[in-house]
């Protein structure tokens, strides 16, 4: 039982990171019906920015993350603005644009930070805690708490603020939202900015857990994407559930006798779930486009 709980704690920790990545994918998809394939690379930039602010500029870790989120949000907003002319013509072109954007980001990151990457020290004293025989890393708890706070804040924004409700309306019915005077393009820009911000938070938080380097976005990004689909693409609670479930599957696979086949087990389990529930665990949500 202790071993089960120990593995579950590890799964929840990495799962919250996947949930944040999945949220970023989902918020753009539900608003625009677009998969932002550059999302993983925004995470990578967020991780590098946090690492730079924290280790080179010696700013406190929370300040480093907030700054990274601001830069990423501006980047996301600007990217949506570049893609906006394509919105009404061909969504596939926008999708290819996001792939190109991701590749460009990798190139720029390599120019700025080099190809070797950097290790980020754990920002808090990480003496393990022993709770009922289960060993818990304080940094894992920090990640869990920060991710929970961000998810709660996102929920409040989407459901309790005018801008958030406008985004929800635009996601539900494009034409109706336009008819009642909602600026849908602005909503799309906000969705991109929020998605990029979420990616930057995930990147910043995951930095001390992994090694920050240019190609990290693809490996974490693909897991976040899978988590979003697992929970139900475009579904906000689904993204959280998908991320946590994906993290748990991965951790239990690694802790089994078949740890060498973790990726195979995880993605086979993912495929089986999707075969049984093609719209994900909580159902897909996306905008009905004209």
């Amino acid at each position, binding site marked *: 039982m202790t071993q089960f709980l120990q593995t579950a704690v590890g799964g929840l920790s990495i799962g919250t990171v996947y949930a944040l990545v999945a949220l970023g994918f989902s918020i753009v998809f539900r608003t625009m019906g677009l998969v932002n394939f550059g999302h993983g690379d925004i995470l990578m930039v967020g991780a590098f920015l946090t690492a730079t602010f924290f280790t080179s500029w010696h700013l406190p870790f929370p300040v480093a993350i907030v700054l990274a989120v601001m830069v990423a949000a501006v980047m996301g907003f600007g990217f949506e603005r570049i893609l906006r002319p394509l919105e009404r013509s061909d969504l596939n072109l926008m999708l290819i644009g996001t792939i190109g954007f991701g590749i460009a980001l990798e190139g720029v990151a390599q120019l700025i930070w080099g*190809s070797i990457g950097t290790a980020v020290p754990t920002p808090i004293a*990480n003496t393990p805690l022993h709770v009922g025989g289960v060993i818990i890393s304080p940094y894992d708890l920090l990640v869990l708490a920060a991710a929970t706070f961000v998810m709660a804040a996102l929920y409040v924004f989407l459901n309790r603020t005018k801008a958030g409700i406008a985004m929800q309306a635009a996601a539900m019915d494009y034409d109706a939202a336009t008819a009642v005077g909602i600026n849908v393009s602005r909503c799309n820009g906000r969705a991109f900015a929020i998605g990029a911000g979420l990616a930057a938070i995930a990147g910043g938080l995951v930095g001390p857990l992994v090694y920050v*380097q240019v190609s990290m976005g693809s490996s974490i990004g693909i897991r976040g994407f899978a988590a979003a689909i697992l929970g139900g693409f475009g579904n906000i609670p689904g993204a959280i559930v998908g991320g946590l479930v994906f993290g748990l599957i991965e951790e239990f696979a690694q*802790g089994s006798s078949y740890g060498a086949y973790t*990726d195979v087990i995880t993605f086979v389990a993912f495929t089986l779930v999707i075969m049984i529930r093609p719209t994900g665990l909580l159902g897909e949500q996306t905008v009905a486009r004209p």
Partner: protein
Amino acid sequence: MRTIRFGHRSRRRRALAAGSAVVLSLAVGTGVGTAQPKATKLPPAKTFNVALIGSDSGTNADLGTWDYQGTTLAAAYINSHPSAFHNVHIKITKFDDQGDPTTAANLAQEVASGHYDLVYGSSLSTDTLAMMPVLSAAHIPEVTSGQSNAILAQGDGYVFLNSAPSSIYDATLAKYAFDKLGDSRVAMLTNNDSYGASEHTAMLANLTARGLTPTDDEVVVPTATDMTGALSLIAKANPKVLFLGMEEVQSGLAVKQARALGIKAVILEGAPAATPIYVQTAGLSNVVGTIVSSPYLSNTLNAQTKAFAAAYMKAFGVAPELHGAKAYDGMMIVATALNMLKGKWTGPTLAAAMHRVKYTGLTGKFVFDSRGLGLHATQIAVINNKGALVIPKNAVSRPSK
């Protein structure tokens, strides 16, 4: 597939390297001492084309960088001493295999249909194994930084290791940790790429030979960054020693995560633990006491390493470590073979000459066997509280073959 050729920064580095070669040539008499002919009338200049294939992006980009730095420093030395090397000019072209064996095999095809005399690479064993059939068929010698015993098992006459393989690294570790220190509660954490699998096999053989069984034996994928699932099983087994068989960054992450789970076991590892990336990734406090097996323990070991370190620092602005020294030795071995051929070579004659080379370099004495194994010994060191490698007083100074 992406090919990176020398850019402005590379040219600047080459210029720096060339300048530093003067310093090196004054101080490193032994660097090429076994091969220097008397300076006579120079033969016509000939270009020796080297394809440097390695991981220059991704998690293992550090390995590609070290290979690049070590080889270019050696090339700068060779090029600045035309009379000592039959006026052979080394030209290095860099290719990025991204740490991916498919990309590496494609690059090997590209190189095989080009005008290259030697492939230096890859920095990863898996990629080396992917390239070997292509290069061997094209009669292009290959000097690799890979350390997997699987490379030697191919029996390929065209491949040469610039270091010892896993079996030698791990035999040195086992002799010290199990025979001298008497540790017996050993857990193993390895990945399942070619290098990790080789480390796993070699260490398990050492344990079995001593009648020991690992308290826990976990294998993860080489891309795993979160290893808490496997490490929590290891924590449950409460080992005194944790053997790692994975590349630099992954090793560092494993140690960082192990300590966060309360695993206090002494870390036991080969070449990856002898690098600054390992210390940086894990955090200094987590790696103090790590027992390392390496053929290159210090930049201040002797006059040769001191001169090498000074030239390296001048050229690249960083202190060298094991992999840079390995790469330098590998290129100097090629230069020694070219000298034996008096600057006239083909693929087969160069490979044959390299099998006859006897070279004492920064990492030890090289004498190649038919499989491409040249270096036959490593040494033991421990990481101290400053992150430096120190030779423990009770360690064997240099085990004989």
